[in-house]
């Protein structure tokens, strides 16, 4: 379990980013961390992985204090950052020098992921495109079998077939011990993949609900004409029509439109959260 408890963090003295932030991530789920630019997504991921230290409060990962960066904890964390620079060595050398630190690294799985991503295992890292490098890192991260896999904007730079491969691989990689956290702006890339949506805005978690709860309580409509205003939780113009979020009164679980949901939460988180009782989101 990953737990942030009363975390305060600031880059500049008088400009706090997080104040009394609380968040719990349970094994067996894929979390989608959403937020606008500058909301604090990357900083939150860095706090979880021990690359930033809270000013106060605590960040614990599987019972370890994240700031201690103990090898036993780091073996169970793999982070694929948004921006990275890989050394000018071959994939084989990278794997030979880095995989040894991860006790659960599986070379068979790594080869399978590379094949799935259509990457040759004898390539030199410096000759790969940005998207290929990202796929290499994702494949390596999955093969470490770390219990916490953190992906910061993983679909940036991936072409359309690669995004499908990514979704397929991630869905198959999850097991009951793993926590996968995916931070992204591109909410549509995560549809049908994530279990829980966490939305961060101005350093606060303004929404934290499972997809199951969302589809049970909310419905996403693409033509709101004729619906009474009190039924509408959020509305926006979409291709000349009014689309939006309404209460799910049918009782049937529907498809969650993450983009509409995200826009609705950003516009009025209180109104969206009001549909979920009791309030489970943590602020």
């Amino acid at each position, binding site marked *: 379990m990953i737990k942030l408890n009363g975390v305060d963090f600031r880059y500049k003295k008088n400009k706090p980013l997080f104040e009394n932030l609380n968040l719990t991530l349970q094994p067996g789920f894929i979390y989608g961390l959403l937020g606008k630019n500058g909301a604090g997504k990357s900083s939150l991921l*860095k706090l979880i*992985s*021990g*690359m*930033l*230290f809270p000013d106060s409060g605590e960040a614990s990962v599987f019972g370890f204090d994240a700031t201690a*960066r*103990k*090898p*036993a904890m*780091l*073996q169970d*964390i*793999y*982070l694929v*950052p948004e*921006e*990275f*620079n890989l*050394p*000018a*060595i071959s994939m084989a*050398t990278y794997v*030979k*020098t*880095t995989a*040894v*630190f*991860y*006790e659960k690294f599986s070379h068979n799985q790594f080869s399978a992921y590379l094949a799935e991503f259509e990457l040759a295992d004898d390539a030199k890292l410096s000759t790969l495109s940005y998207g290929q490098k990202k796929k290499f890192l994702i494949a390596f991260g999955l093969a470490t079998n770390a219990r916490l896999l953190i992906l910061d904007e993983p679909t940036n730079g991936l072409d359309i077939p690669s995004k499908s491969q990514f979704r397929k691989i991630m869905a198959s990689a999850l097991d009951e011990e793993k926590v996968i956290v995916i931070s992204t702006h591109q909410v549509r890339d995560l549809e049908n993949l994530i279990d829980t949506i966490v939305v961060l805005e101005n350093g606060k978690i303004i929404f934290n609900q499972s997809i199951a709860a969302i589809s049970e309580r909310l419905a996403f409509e693409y033509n709101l004409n004729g619906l009474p205003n009190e039924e509408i939780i959020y509305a926006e113009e979409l291709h000349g029509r009014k689309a939006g979020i309404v209460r799910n009164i049918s009782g049937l679980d529907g498809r969650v439109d993450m983009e509409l949901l995200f826009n609705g939460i950003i516009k009025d988180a209180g109104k969206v959260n009001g549909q979920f009782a009791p309030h489970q989101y943590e602020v």
Partner: protein
Amino acid sequence: MNAEFNLARLGLFIKRQLLLNINTILIAIAAVVGVLLIISGLTAYSNPNKVQNLVPLYLVVLFIGGYIFTSRIFGELHSPQKSYTFLTLPVSTAEKLLGTWLIVSPFFLITAIAGTFLLMYVSSLMAGQPAQLPSFTDTYFTRTIGAFWVTQTFFFLGAIAFRGNNFLKTLLALFLIAIVVGGYAVGLAYMLFGNKGNLGPSDVSGDFHKTAEFIFTDVVPFLFWYVLGPFLLVVSYFKLKERQV
């Protein structure tokens, strides 16, 4: 491999650091050895009897090269796009510190001294002189290497503490420290002796003379040779432990 310090993991970390930096290391060695070979060849050709005078030049290159190499060893830590790898690598801070220090200190010294001996041997051959290799028992040589070992720890700390231009920033920091210490010493001397100018044994008491002699001949050398290096390494450990992206 879950303990805080594990020899096998330390070995793997050293191997990783060497493999990741091997191209840079080899290019630097080739460039330095090439330049020194040319200088040695010219000296052997023009002044065959003075090849022994090349040793100080080799030592100067060893010092400067060693300081620059040390200052750059944590480059991965200071690159925004690489630091995540270094910080999240499942290796403890103690292993990262010791592994890196072993590369820049004993490994570097062994390589550099072997290179110095080889260059001297080649220079002597080119000059047609019997090989005049520096001796490990030569006090000048051993004290010089010892001084490098100690002073290098300043640059090791600078390599962790500063982000970018580590070598120049460490030099600047050393210069500022020298100014402060020098200023303090001058101020202290002024307070003790005023405007006396040249001081003779009659100007100070016997006790003061003994105390000063004890400080400068026993305490200061002890602090320099045995305390300074370990102290700076301990500070480096905590700087690395507390390092964030």
